[in-house]
């Protein structure tokens, strides 16, 4: 029985060669676009998050504050990843380094006149999710002994907005593309059904169950999905590897998501996605037709 079903599906694929080719090609194109969009989305999102994660909240402390206590309180917040105490001497060194002063120069100054380091002791905070930066900053500002909280608000906010926008538009595009693919497959299956309407008619007359009539078409849809998925993932992975090589050489500051595991996973997901689309599309096509008979 299974043999017969598979044979039916395979015969249909072979006999309607051109239509089958069109279906698999459609599926390949749709999945490639879908996959490319997905790759672009995760990479942009990945980059935005990396940038955002670099953002640090700096908590300036009052001179008489108990740094240890503030740090403990900060760490108690679940959203905080790690904290680092930056003594004022360190801050001065960092500042000098950034602006190219020599620390010796300052030391010299100190000997001549009583010099006081104007920088406060500070605690640097990294948060787990960049999304939480504003909230953590506000909370930190309310702690005892905190003079001022600083973070690079605009940049962080912009990056976060960008990351969010990419995620949302990617999802919307994926949904639209997915729907288009579904319609494409169901139309293709309708064409094959039309080409085989005579057989279907006979099957119905001799008492084949609807399931039995549908199954070869569902298998056919799955076949187109698998073929499309395999071709699309080959195309995508090949071009992605190429792009990654190019970026690595010329635009090294862009960190692309790369590695054997995510890429294999991506390929498998593309094929799975194609199969689901194929099955769902043919399901829609077959249902529509059999109801009409």
């Amino acid at each position: 029985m299974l043999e017969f079903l598979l044979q039916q599906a395979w015969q249909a694929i072979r006999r309607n060669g051109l239509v089958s080719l069109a279906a698999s090609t459609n599926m390949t194109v749709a999945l490639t676009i879908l996959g490319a969009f997905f790759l672009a989305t995760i990479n942009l999102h990945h980059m935005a998050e990396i940038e955002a994660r670099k953002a640090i909240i700096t908590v300036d402390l009052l001179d008489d504050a108990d740094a240890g206590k503030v740090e403990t309180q900060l760490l108690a917040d679940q959203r905080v990843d790690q904290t680092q105490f930056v003594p004022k001497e360190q801050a001065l060194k960092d500042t000098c380094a950034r602006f190219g002063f020599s620390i010796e120069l300052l030391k010299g100054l100190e000997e001549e006149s009583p010099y006081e380091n104007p920088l406060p002791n500070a605690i640097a905070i990294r948060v787990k999710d960049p999304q939480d930066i504003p909230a953590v900053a506000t909370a930190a500002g309310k702690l005892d002994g905190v003079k001022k909280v600083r973070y690079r608000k605009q940049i962080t906010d912009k990056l976060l907005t960008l990351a969010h926008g990419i995620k949302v538009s990617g999802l919307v595009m994926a949904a639209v593309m997915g729907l288009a693919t579904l319609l494409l497959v169901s139309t293709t299956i309708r064409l094959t059904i039309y080409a085989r309407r005579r057989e279907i008619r006979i099957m119905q007359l001799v008492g084949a169950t609807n399931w039995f009539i549908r199954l070869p078409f569902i298998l056919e849809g799955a076949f187109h999905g698998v073929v499309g998925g395999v071709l699309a993932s080959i195309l995508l992975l090949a071009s992605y590897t190429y792009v990654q090589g190019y970026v690595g050489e010329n635009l090294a500051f862009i960190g692309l998501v790369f590695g054997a595991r995510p890429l294999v996973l991506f390929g498998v997901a593309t094929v799975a996605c194609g199969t689901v689309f194929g099955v769902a599309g043919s399901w829609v096509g077959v249902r529509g037709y059999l109801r009409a008979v």
Partner: protein
Amino acid sequence: MIDMQGVGVVYPDGTRALAGIDLHIDRGEFAFIVGASGSGKTTLLQLIYRELVPTEGRVLIAGQDVASLPRSRVPQLRRKVGVVFQDFRLLPDKNVWENIAFALDVVGASRKEKYRKVPLSLELVGLIDKEQSLPHELSGGEQQRVCIARALVNSPAILLADEPTGNLDPDISWEIVQLLSSISERGTTVAVATHDRYIVDGLRKRVVSLVGGTMVRDDREGGGYDEP
């Protein structure tokens, strides 16, 4: 086996196809349904294999009301009812054996069952030596025999034929109708819709005559096309 009580059919567009049909056909009986084109013969047969459900009245097949039959049970009914058409409806790219086996395949028969039943069916219609031929290599009469073999291969209780001789020469028509008659003698209920006067007059079996969707005559004694 077939029981119709006050059956009427009105198509969705408002055309009335049948009205007030009371018809009973017993197990193993042979009946001609005669009438001009558009008199409702095909509609009557379609009620039996549940291509249609009656708008009025009841159709009982082996005691089962077809209108109340859920969609999922229709295939089971169809396995009990073999249908033969004027235009044969064979699959052009399958040979005779495969065409008949197809009817077994789609009901999930095993390989063993196929090898047992297909030759039996072919033998019944006298085509055992043509099993490898493709439909277009056969004459019209032979194609119709293949159709009958396919309709019979699931051992249905009822065999319906809609203008089975419409595309055939008179001599061949006569052979086909005799084959159908011999099938009814083996216990299968056979109903043949036709406007072929020649075969009706020749066989002298029960004749149910339709005019404009109503039954005007039911001659159980074996009449001619026009007169008892």
